[in-house]
């Protein structure tokens, strides 16, 4: 399985309260899980690092968390919010 290092695309940033992604002409509301994942994307962490961190935070198996992260990142990348 590939293990990319996701980061927010140029011009995309979190709104001040952390609940939304702001991009040109677009706003994306993030649910609580998505917010935790996006907060972890600092441009240095690989997906496996993010899964490990969140696995601790939520006390959930890494493989389960990993599925959520992969799905979210694929979706955000297709919509142009995230670069892999």
């Amino acid at each position, binding site marked *: 399985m590939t293990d990319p290092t996701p980061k927010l695309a*140029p011009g995309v940033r979190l709104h001040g309260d952390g609940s939304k992604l702001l991009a040109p*002409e677009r*706003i994306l509301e993030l649910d609580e899980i998505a917010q935790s994942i996006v907060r972890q994307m600092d441009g240095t962490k690989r997906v496996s690092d993010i899964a490990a961190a969140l696995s601790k935070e939520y006390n959930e198996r890494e493989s389960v968390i990993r599925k959520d992260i992969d799905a979210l990142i694929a979706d955000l990348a297709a919509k142009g919010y995230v670069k892999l």
Partner: protein
Amino acid sequence: MSLPSPIGLLAELTHRCPLGCPYCSNPIDLVRASGELDARAWTRVMQEAADLGAMHVHLSGGEPLTRNDLAEIVNAANVAGLYTNLITSAIGLTPQRLTELKAAGLDHVQISIQGADPARADAVAHFKGAMKTKREAARHVVEEGLALTINAVVHRDNIRDLPQIIDLAQEWGAGRLEVAHVQYHGWALANRAGLMPSRDEFQTAAQVVEEARERLSGDLVIDHVIPDYYGERPKACMGGWGRQVIVVAPDGRALPCHAAASLPGLTFANVKNKSLSEIWKDDAAFQRYRGTSWMPKPCQGCERAEVDWGGCRCQAFALAGDASLTDPVCALSPNHATVAAAIAKDTAAPRAPYRFRRIGG
């Protein structure tokens, strides 16, 4: 129904512009430099917009770069927490200027192009060398690490170049391309006969966009603003009157839509005398077509009443002569035939010469 917050502020900083595009959405009656709000007033407007709940500010015009105090205004928007989007022709976007704007907190740059072929694009822009300047500016934007959108307004003279326009947006390093068919307000309405493409040309363009979206997924976001005249149902203009966007014109008038000043019978409050919040909540012009209670039949009770909010008031006025009617673009409108008539007339006519936009029109 509780009043929603605006999500965006469209700040028309000036009507001055070096270009003369015949499809400009500005009103024919343009504000002169002497009538413009100063940076101090804009600073207050930015904070008031953010306090009201807005998240984006679109710094538009005219050409915002004609203002020497643009960086001060960008900084004020940034301090207020707004996502700052510069909507520019790129004429005057020198590397120095860009560095200054980036330092002030600019989030995103949207550069307009008038086509893919430099000579023909410059002719539409009414500005020699425009394309070359834009290409260089786009390169600087990407080099600065700023996000770039290319905006291409498409019409009769460039719609067949859409594949080349898409290639160019990619080649210039844009993350997003906005393909916007001309909407016929202001100068564009005056030039409609020179701008209207045929239905076939529009349908081909829609296919080109669909194909490119699939091919470039994850690489280039393409937003396609389809032409109202070829729609079956109207668009929620500005997301609905007084619902999502507040426009402040160069002279400080607060408008529900950038073309609203062309509607008869409405007077607009000025941010010089009132706060944005007071205007948004109480101003009569913002109330006039807000929500659904103003709606005539067939909007009243329609399942799409809160989807398209009755469409565009300016279009109802332009085509049916009354801003309080259903947008004639809607197939259910009793005035729907006026759209087909306008298309038939304009596409059959020999191409009319452009009336280029200029102050003092």
